[in-house]
């Protein structure tokens, strides 16, 4: 039963993923040269999130996993986001 769910990523696809990640990194380094004011952090975080999603899906084989695990991973990130938001309900309105 072990072999039927043996998904294998090909070397080339992994290499492409790396290339994408490196491009995103270069992009985020480049973009900090511009000053978007308050948006700088937002932009940096959005790019980072895209990178993280890429790693999760491809390197960590989330695309091969069952729906439950995928939901779980998303849920954990959402959970953390909610905690941060709630904390800021305090700090932001102070």
């Amino acid at each position, binding site marked *: 039963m072990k072999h039927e769910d043996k998904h294998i*990523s090909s070397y080339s696809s992994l290499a492409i993923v790396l290339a994408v990640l490196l491009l995103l*990194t270069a992009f985020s380094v480049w973009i900090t040269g511009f000053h978007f004011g308050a948006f700088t952090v937002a932009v940096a975080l959005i790019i980072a999130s895209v990178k993280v999603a890429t*790693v999760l899906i491809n390197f960590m084989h989330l695309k091969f996993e069952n729906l439950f695990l995928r939901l779980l991973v998303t849920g954990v*990130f959402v959970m*953390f986001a909610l905690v941060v938001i709630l904390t800021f309900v305090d700090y932001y309105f102070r």
Partner: protein
Amino acid sequence: MSVHNTHSEHIDSETGKLGMWIFLFTELFLFGGLFLVYAVFRAKYSAEFHLAAGELNAFIGTMNTVFLLFSSMTVAMSLTAIQKGDRKLALFLVFVTILLAGLFMVNKYFEWSHKFEYGIYPGSEVLKNMSHGELLFFGLYYMMTGLHALHVLVGMVLLSINVVKIRSGSVNSDHYLMLENSALYWHLVDLIWIFLFPLLYLIT
């Protein structure tokens, strides 16, 4: 579901993997606590954070990002290799991963010792004379990168164990849970860094 022999030494791979994922969640929340602290202080002292981040060397940071991304790929490839039964290649790729991790640590070492030379370390006089925001930034910097570096070290140990196991053949194309889980762990180390990098180095 393998229900017949739960007392045997081999944990089936779905079970082992689920365990690892859940462990990774706890790691995420461990760093999450620090990210929350970062967010609060960053909101409070954004100007000082900008200033202090300027002290960090974005080049070294970028280098390290590249090392980690590369190593993430090599460890993922080594898993592909072991699944395909190519032991030599797998061994080589794990080896490269460890090497890249080592390079990361060397870089980190230089970065930290550079800071120490300038007297920037927790509790130092130089820091005490800086503004509060800068002081907190460096406190967070050391705490976050320190904890992360610790995880890199653990990852290196895990990968080294894999080297031994691949050699001895106990990690092979049928049983590669150990490598799979170590790879997951290693990717997590990468994930954390992906967030740390812009937050610490790129907010100038």
